[in-house]
């Protein structure tokens, strides 16, 4: 267990997902998935490509309506009170870069105003410093490297001091040194800021290092959940990657699901 995930004491749930189900025609993308994310907790949402991770995140963000099931963020049902639920929620995703025709500062100001951030100028300056973006402040996001763009997305994701943070492969395009620093920053946000974080990644080393708990999603179903250490013990795997490969290759039968 790393230092980061020994000091957390998860309290109330910032995110409650209950019996979430999404169907596109005959295809079931997410099948009766339920889980919580607590304040100060980092939860890894893992699964092979097409498992339903991004569909789940899109539903939590209110840009995709579940077929059935509920999503409650800090007591607000996303379907019934979308704006309130998303007020203290934010996200960064590798497939959703900020508009490339605006500068770093302009993007942060634009989204800061949309989130209704108070003392916005001070907040932007603090985030530019936190993510080492001062020298890029007047540069258009489109000309930044993918790693720099990821840092801008993360800065945007922190603008409203979110209580729920959704990070879809946040370190996918970062070099190991920057990825290490970013992981440390995100851990601080969970530990000190008390945010609940839902984190998807294909980097199992990273997940093992950062996450308090992991959820294994395979073909829309939640097959396993627990702390990385407990899951490794229970399934006799040496690494999370070994467990990931094993789970991803299980033929999806009801027996496998209940196991």
């Amino acid at each position: 267990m790393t230092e980061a995930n020994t000091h957390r004491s998860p309290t109330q749930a910032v995110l409650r997902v209950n019996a979430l189900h999404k169907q596109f025609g005959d295809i079931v993308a997410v099948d009766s998935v339920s889980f919580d994310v607590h304040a100060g907790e980092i939860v890894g949402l893992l699964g092979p490509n097409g498992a339903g991770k991004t569909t789940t995140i899109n539903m939590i963000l209110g840009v995709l309506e579940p077929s059935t099931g509920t999503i409650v963020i800090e007591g607000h049902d996303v379907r019934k009170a979308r704006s309130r639920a998303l007020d203290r929620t934010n996200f960064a995703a590798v497939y959703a870069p900020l508009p490339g025709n605006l500068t770093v500062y302009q993007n942060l100001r634009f989204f800061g105003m949309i989130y209704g951030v108070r003392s916005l100028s001070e907040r932007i300056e603090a985030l530019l410093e936190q993510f080492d973006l001062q020298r890029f402040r007047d540069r258009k996001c489109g000309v930044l490297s993918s790693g720099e763009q990821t840092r801008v997305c993360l800065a945007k994701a922190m603008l409203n001091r979110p209580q729920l943070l959704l990070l879809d492969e946040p370190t996918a395009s970062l070099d190991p040194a920057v990825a290490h620093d970013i992981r440390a920053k995100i851990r601080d946000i969970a530990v000190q800021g008390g945010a609940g974080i839902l984190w998807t990644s294909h980097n199992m080393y990273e997940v093992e290092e950062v996450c308090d708990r992991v959820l294994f999603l395979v073909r829309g179903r939640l097959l396993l959940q627990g702390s990385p250490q407990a899951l490794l013990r229970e399934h006799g795997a040496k690494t999370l990657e070994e467990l990931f490969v094993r789970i991803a290759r299980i033929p999806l039968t009801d027996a496998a699901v209940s196991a």
Partner: protein
Amino acid sequence: MMRLRPTAAIVLRQFYLMRGSPTRLLPMFAWVAIDIVLWGFITRYLSSVSAPGINFVAGLLGAVLLWDFFTRVMQGVTTAFFEDVWSRNFLNIFATPLLISEYVGGLVLTSIVTSVIGLAVMLLLATTVFGLSFFAYGILLVPFLLVLFLFGIALGIFASAMVLRLGPASEWLVWPIPALLSPFAGVFYPLSTLPLWMRAIAALLPPSYVFEGMRGIVAGNGFSVATLAAALTLAVIEIVAACWFFSHVFRFAVRTGLLARYSAESVS
């Protein structure tokens, strides 16, 4: 409740984009200026070869100016919306607390700013170079512009919703909309010129009342308040219908996953 700050953010974003890109700024001035210059010379020529007493400047150039204003208003809304299409920004912008009313309000405010700038350029050119006097229309110019503005907003919101529903590639269906409507609106000729079926469509278009009224005033026949009220009412109803349509399409896009998909795909 609609909040001012997120709405202002949409306008600010457009300001940033224009400030950073002359190619966005230029069309606000260039196309309207070209239209006024072209039609200004056409009216000057027509005036020189026609019988005295026919006011081509007020009738023809005024019509071009008002139609251009309506087009700019509509495109002010759609262009602000397209910025999110072009930058594949739907996911970022709609995964926020932003309300649809705030977003649409921002598009409308953006259009007000850009179309007023375009109008000022047109007025300046038409009055100083070609001697167009808007005193010819009297106080009615204000409600005329208001009707055109409201209809431009309604059509802009409707066209944006259409792109949201049909996908980014359908942007190309939006640009010709004003040209498609112009034969029905009677911009350059009386509605009585049109066959009956076209007149029926014209009756649903608020600009047709404006241009008919404008010709009446130039010819010294006046313009009835009831007709003006009908045009205004029609424009307001069409705005409400367009907002409902946008909201309906947005809900459809959220239900079916279109919204999330557009963020991942380019114009296709």
